[in-house]
């Protein structure tokens, strides 16, 4: 937990540090890293109930579009919240439909959902379709570091919720649901509620991150916002960092996204390869993630 606090503190302080000519680039990349790490934290929350989603790209995108569309009417913060809420509502639909699906079938169903969403956005006029949607900057551009601090805030919120849930009673319910759903029910765990709650919280956070992303990049396209790349990042990071923890996705996110950004500079289009390779290597050699290097027994907390 200390590590989490430390990282967040660093994030807050970053703009104040003397960064020289790299400043704009570093702050920009840092924002991206924060948002993707937040997405990863959100994914991890849902994974705690045994639901391994490939829909988080769609949640990110939904939040992005919803916030972008709402901002001119209601202002930055309400739009972001709205984006999160809309995403959470959609996720509940998905969650309800997939209650009885597990493993591979669940993953494929969420992927199918994601693709359908993408096509809908692509084909709808009001979202700008294939041409894309220009987005107002955060707070109408009044604060130059507006979206930066929003990104930090979202990351802090995601980390906070992740930590909180990890230490709450709900943690036992989520873990029991994950490790033995039928048995959990017989022990009285309200499995349906737990799974849906996880969906809603996870999607809300993902949507928030998406919204801030929209206000940072100032332009949305369905290929970018709903790209499978987001879904891949969302799942590889927690696995690499350490599932069902807070430090795992956070640390893993910062490391991997930095790697990704560096690679993107070097090799252009194929930079996602790093995710693929890292995933394969992690499963082969460090299946419990980075955090396992420091772990103790039981489900514990971190």
């Amino acid at each position: 937990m200390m590590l989490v606090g430390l990282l967040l503190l660093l994030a807050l302080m970053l703009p104040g540090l003397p960064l020289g000519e790299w400043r704009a680039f570093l702050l920009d990349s840092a924002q991206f890293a924060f948002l993707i790490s937040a997405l990863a934290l959100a994914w991890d929350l849902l994974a705690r109930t045994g639901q391994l989603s490939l829909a988080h790209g769609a949640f990110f995108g939904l939040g992005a579009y919803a916030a972008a569309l709402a901002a001119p009417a209601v202002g930055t913060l309400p739009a972001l919240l709205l984006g999160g809420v809309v995403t959470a509502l959609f996720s509940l639909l998905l969650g309800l439909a997939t209650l009885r699906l597990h493993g591979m079938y669940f993953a494929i169903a969420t992927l199918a959902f994601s693709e359908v969403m993408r096509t809908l956005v692509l084909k709808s006029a009001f979202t700008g379709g294939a041409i894309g949607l220009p987005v107002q900057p955060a707070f109408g551009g009044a604060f130059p570091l507006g979206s930066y601090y929003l990104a930090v805030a979202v990351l802090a919120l995601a980390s906070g919720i992740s930590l909180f849930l990890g230490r709450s009673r709900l943690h036992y319910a989520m873990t029991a649901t994950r490790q033995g759903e039928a048995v959990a029910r017989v022990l009285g765990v309200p499995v349906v509620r737990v799974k849906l709650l996880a969906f809603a919280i996870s999607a809300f956070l993902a949507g928030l991150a998406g919204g801030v992303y929209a206000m940072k990049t100032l332009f949305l396209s369905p290929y970018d916002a709903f790209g499978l790349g987001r879904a891949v990042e969302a799942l590889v990071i927690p696995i690499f960092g350490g599932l069902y923890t807070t430090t795992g996705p956070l640390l893993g996110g910062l490391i991997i996204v930095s790697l990704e950004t560096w690679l993107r500079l070097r090799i252009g289009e194929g930079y996602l390869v790093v995710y693929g390779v890292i995933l394969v290597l992690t499963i082969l050699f460090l299946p419990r993630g980075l955090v396992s290097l420091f772990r103790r027994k039981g489900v514990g907390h971190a």
Partner: protein
Amino acid sequence: MLRVEGLSKRFGGVVAASGVDLQVQPGEILAVIGPNGAGKSTLLNLLSGLLRPDQGRIEFLGEEITQAPPEVRTWKGLGRAFQIVQPFPEMTVWENLLVGALYGKPNTSLKVAEGVVKEIIERTGLAPKAQTLAGELTLLEDKRLELARALCTRPRLLLLDEVMAGLRPSEALEAVELVRRIRESGVTVLFIEHLMPVVRALADRVVVMDYGQVIAQGRYDEVAANPRVREAYLGRAS
């Protein structure tokens, strides 16, 4: 305490339960026996809510629970221990029990739950293994865990599914003692069993099933002497 009327369930062409009537009195230990495929496990699944019946009625403590989901039945006091033990493998024994204690009844605080776990872990002899991962237990310890976990949900009626399976005779004796102590603590027990010595030692009453129907009820001696029961187990004399 528990009243079952006309319970029926079929799977495709197979009739797993047909017009099952039975009652469980508070404080008793009731055994359900019968040859393989008689429908005993189906009955237990219907009672605990993992299956819904096609017809019939289940009433527990005066309330109808026929269509209630498993969680709700547990909250009302109907607990179950599985035959094939499924501990939460990546949680410690303590944590496994805690799940049962926290969620077995609505609105249980962490403090209260931990108190329950403490008491039951002592009673079932699992205290030394409290911090062991459940995935690393021996078979006997697994079974104790299963029982303890179900007890943590504070059931009024506990459904036991062939708990003796796979135990050595000495271990089985221990298990019998444990079930007796459970009854003494105020929990009514309904158990499925194949080993007749266990049934005779534990059961106040016995219900015999065959082909999904109840074919006899009563005390062990009465039931053992019943020709229909003998037929069911040994086959019709040609």
